[in-house]
């Protein structure tokens, strides 16, 4: 059984890490499933986080991650060594999430809220360094932003997740989404505006509610 361990490495190690990754990719492309499993271990957390942020619940994120890795294995032969592997991985992840969202819409299912199940999990585990109040505030803020993200269209959500959360540049996001930098900037700008307005509206309502209670 393989263990998953993610450690922050210095830049030099990253370069070496990239080379070892390329080596793993070559072996996996020729049919070495053990090498492919190492690739999965290396990237599973990234993929799972991305799918969760795009789809909103653990079950869909799990299915999507599975599909992502299957497609990665299928198209590994098409991957070029001069390409950025994680950018390529993000492209596949975004496409899988888009397909699942489309399927959902065809079945008449609405976007599942991020809050489903998330609040329960976080409340179960209390960080010792935080007080209960702080944890509750944290939870509330996370739920707020999760609700705000759920209101965004798929493309804007993907843009803002890749740009503001994953920390990729506008150019990298444009490559992943097969779009232009101008379009990505426009989508990111629109997403940030909507999130800000949503939070503002929520806090205003909360403030009005509190004043009523008083």
């Amino acid at each position: 059984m393989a263990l998953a361990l993610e450690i922050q490495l210095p830049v030099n190690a990253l370069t070496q890490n990239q080379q070892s990754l390329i080596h793993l990719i070559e072996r996996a492309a020729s049919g070495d499933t053990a090498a492919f499993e190492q690739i999965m271990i290396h990237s599973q957390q990234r993929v799972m986080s991305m799918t969760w942020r795009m789809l909103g619940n653990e079950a869909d994120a799990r299915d999507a991650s599975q599909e992502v890795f299957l497609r990665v294995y299928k198209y590994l032969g098409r991957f070029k060594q001069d390409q950025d592997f994680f950018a390529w991985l993000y492209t596949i992840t975004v496409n899988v999430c888009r397909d699942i969202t489309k399927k959902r819409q065809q079945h008449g299912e609405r976007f599942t809220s991020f809050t489903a199940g998330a609040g329960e999990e976080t409340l179960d585990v209390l960080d010792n360094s935080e007080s209960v109040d702080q944890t509750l505030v944290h939870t509330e803020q996370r739920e707020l932003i999760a609700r705000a993200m759920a209101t965004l269209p798929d493309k804007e959500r993907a843009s803002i997740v890749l740009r503001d959360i994953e920390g990729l540049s506008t150019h990298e996001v444009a490559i992943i989404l097969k779009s232009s930098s101008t379009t990505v900037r426009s989508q990111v700008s629109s997403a940030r505006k909507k999130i800000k307005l949503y939070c503002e509206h929520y806090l205003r309502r909360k403030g009005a509610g509190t004043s009523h209670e008083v």
Partner: protein
Amino acid sequence: MKCKQVQEMLPLFAGRDLEENRAKLVTAHLQSCGVCSRAAQEYGEAGQLLQMFEPPQFSEAMYTGIRQRVLREIDRKSVTPTMFESISSLFRPPLRLAVAASLLLAVSVLALYFVINRNGGRQNQTVVVETGGSGQRKTPDLQASPEPRPENLATTANPKRSATDLTTFSSRSRKSRFRPSQKRTGATNAELVATRSVDPPQPNISLKSPDTPAEALRMEMQTQDRNIRIIWFSQPTKEGSPSESSKGI
């Protein structure tokens, strides 16, 4: 810079996505405008909230489960390829081209065969359509004989006219072609011969005269109008009785 312009640029400014020169202008405006400054602060807070948008901590068991399912699926597909995969494996690029080329060739040959046969059939078809006095159309006759092109119009009123002026058809097979028509009265009966031939047939000038008084004489003349043909024939006569001739237009 106006507040409205600054407010539009604030989302990009908050994420440091604005061009340098524009960012400087926005910064300068924010220093003097309280409303825009407050809006910029709100964008900053929303951005910080976004950084908290983290997924829950997924267990190692879940990750292991995903990997195992993926590897199992890979093993299954490698052992039993799907029907689509097995069929599509036949269509490798070089083989695919060869199959496509051979299909195209086969279709072309078949098409050519049908076109040639169709044209050849046309040449041999002569449709004889008779309309009786009541105007009813009778079933057409088909005869495999080439049709000469009408050169000129010849009158049939005077059978003594030179045969060179006539374009005639020889009645090879009277049974198939000649319909013993009833006595006709004037112009009410018309006999039309329609042809489907496209090729210009050679004029066939021949006048078959009966060897014996018992044989019928038949002459057909094609007018310049392809749809109109004049047929003249006489029925065999008994000795002493005048010959009956009929003329159809």
